[in-house]
């Protein structure tokens, strides 16, 4: 049982991303989209990258980050919306953090 987490809010503004992290399981994946892209620069991401193993995956919607002038780390996979649709079915369920 795996979960795809769609993170749409900035952790600099709200507590939602922190709540996401508290239920994150080993084989889950996170997609940063909308203002969730700002989390690429948040210190919570460091703790996440420390927790990362081969099974946890991080994605960001490429044009959502680019529109916001956010440089993306190499360890984060840039995806299109079509790939987000694919990911939806690669995981057992989806939680949207908005």
């Amino acid at each position, binding site marked *: 049982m795996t979960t795809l987490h769609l993170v749409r809010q900035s952790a600099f503004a709200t507590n939602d991303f922190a709540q996401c992290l508290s239920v994150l399981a080993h084989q889950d994946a996170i997609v940063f*989209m909308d203002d969730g892209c700002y989390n690429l620069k948040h210190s919570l991401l460091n703790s996440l990258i420390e927790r990362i193993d081969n099974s946890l995956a991080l994605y960001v919607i490429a044009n959502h980050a680019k529109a916001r002038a956010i440089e993306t780390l190499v360890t984060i996979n840039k995806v299109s*919306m*079509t790939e*987000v*649709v694919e990911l*939806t*079915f690669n995981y057992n369920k*989806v939680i949207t953090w908005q």
Partner: protein
Amino acid sequence: MKTLAVVVTTPPYSHLTITALNYVEAALQAEVEVIGVFFYQDGVMHANQNISIASDEYQAIQHWQRLHQNYQLPLHICITAAEKRGIVCDALDNEKVNQAFTVSGLGELVELTTKASRLVQF
């Protein structure tokens, strides 16, 4: 079989709605069976016929109509949420509801959730 139900809670004048639309359109183009979009909370504002968005802004309502027409995508609005927001759902006077949308109860959400292999909320 990949079947998808989508819940939309943001209004047509929210930029977040563009993301929902892009996601649903990407799913339809990938031949995922999207069994319905359920508009809840401020999402029901999409069915308000009187909404007038500046012509140089994103026309979310027209895009939902287009997906409805091109893919027979079912669009449901929650009647309770709609009436709270001034969208009259009277069968005798339904000119205020955009005809691409079906006025439904929350029972429709139960139906969609039970049938879909994935439920995604925006």
